[in-house]
């Protein structure tokens, strides 16, 4: 399963993407400002609320599973020393909290992705960042969100094809090599086909962007986002 936009009518779906971006930015700032267990516990509640408002759940968080080993290993690596005492728990704990902070930011991002169509993200960026920089960012976001799910599906197909012909019995290293080679090949092919499709459909840097409008719910979201940013600034001072 790939994390992607899921049509719906949840509270998060009804929010303007600019509000959601502000909440994300505020959340990230607060997560870096409040690194104590108590602060992160409060942010945990907020992160779960953000995902719930988008009708998301553990399945969405599970899409980040490829990042979990890195986040889990980081405290062990940070705590390890080359000599006695061989392991320093306080350093591992600090890094563990940092890993957890990253996880929380990913949870909030999952709520955004599943509740926001790609073209609305593009519109929000282009309206927030003026000029060519905004266009460049908007197009970049649009292409990445269109390309990654396709690439992921190609990789899964390659893996299934390898398994279907007995490749599942190969050593992990060989399987990784086969999937990687097939994945790179398919990535280039997929990029080529996506480029052709975009050309055929007159891909433009300045298309008609979807209508965006702030509603009543956005007032709350904007207040939360601004509050989080302000809290981060106060903490930093």
């Amino acid at each position, binding site marked *: 399963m790939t994390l*992607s*936009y*899921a*049509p719906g009518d949840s509270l998060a779906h009804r929010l303007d993407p600019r509000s959601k971006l502000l909440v994300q930015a505020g959340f990230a700032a607060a997560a870096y400002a409040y690194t104590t267990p108590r602060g992160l516990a409060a942010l945990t509640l907020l992160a779960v609320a953000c995902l719930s408002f988008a009708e998301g759940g553990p399945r969405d968080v599970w899409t980040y599973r490829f990042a979990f080993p890195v986040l889990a290993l980081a405290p062990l690596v940070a705590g390890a020393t080359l000599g006695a005492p061989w392991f320093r728990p306080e350093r591992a704990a600090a890094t563990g909290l940092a890993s957890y902070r990253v996880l929380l930011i990913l949870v909030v991002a999952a709520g955004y992705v599943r509740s926001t*169509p*790609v*073209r609305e993200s593009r519109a929000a960026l282009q309206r927030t960042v003026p000029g060519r920089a905004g266009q460049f960012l908007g197009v970049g976001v649009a292409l990445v969100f*269109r390309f990654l799910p*396709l690439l992921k599906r190609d990789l899964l197909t390659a893996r299934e094809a390898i398994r279907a012909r007995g490749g599942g019995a190969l050593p992990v290293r060989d399987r990784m090599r086969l999937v990687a080679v097939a994945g790179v090949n398919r990535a280039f092919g997929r990029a080529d*086909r*996506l480029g*052709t*499709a*975009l*050309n*055929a*459909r*007159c*891909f*433009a840097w*300045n*298309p*008609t*962007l*979807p*209508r965006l409008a702030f509603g009543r719910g956005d007032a709350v979201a904007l207040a939360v986002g601004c509050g989080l940013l302000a809290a981060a600034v106060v903490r930093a001072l």
Partner: protein
Amino acid sequence: MIDVNGVTCRYGDGSDDGAVTAVDDVSLSVPDGEFLVVAGANGSGKTTLVRTFNGLATPDAGTVAVNGTPVADDLVAARTAVGMVFQDPRDQLVAATVGADVAFGPENLGLAHEEIDRRVAAALDAVNMAGRGEDRIASLSGGERERVAIAGALAMEPDHLVLDEPFTGLDEPARRSVVDRLRERRRAGTSVIVVTHDLRDVLGLADRVVGLADGRVAVDAAPEAAVGDLPGLDVRVPAGAAGTRAGETSASDP
């Protein structure tokens, strides 16, 4: 009108030794409103030829003009006038939901929101998918994806609609549905160009059949006259097709 004049397309490293000639000095015209079938075996140059119609492939020699304007002079005009449906619709669908995907082309043309909404509604209606704009592309069947791809092309309101092997991988009901949609396009006056190696579904709809072999036009005639020569090009035709209009009979017809 699409005018193809002496078009040659080569693939390869640019040297004479390494290049493969996919399309070799092809000339033909597609009048407005015509239902043209471009037939040929795999590797005969069909797809490359139709890709020159809207500039997705650039001829090494010769010219292509759409509605009197050379394609190379105005790619956006060519791509607006010639809608393209790819062989695998998954290569063409770029959004997460049906409505967003169909709107993608009109948005790129910079149209007003009201016009985009009208075109999306009309295109979805034309492929019998009205009211399904919020459906996820990933949840659609192969036939439905094909119809969304056709809707995406129709939303550009093209003068010419090109479909590359539109029946590949579709089951019988889905094939009939696509044939019905093509029949409606024909009635609406859009010229339809179907690229295929299997004429069983479309021979009855065709005004003309162009058969390609090794990149050259081997047959260019009305279906009744062309059908006898097509099996020699490794093209599949309906059983007893000579003198019949088999595709006119669809199981979805009363």
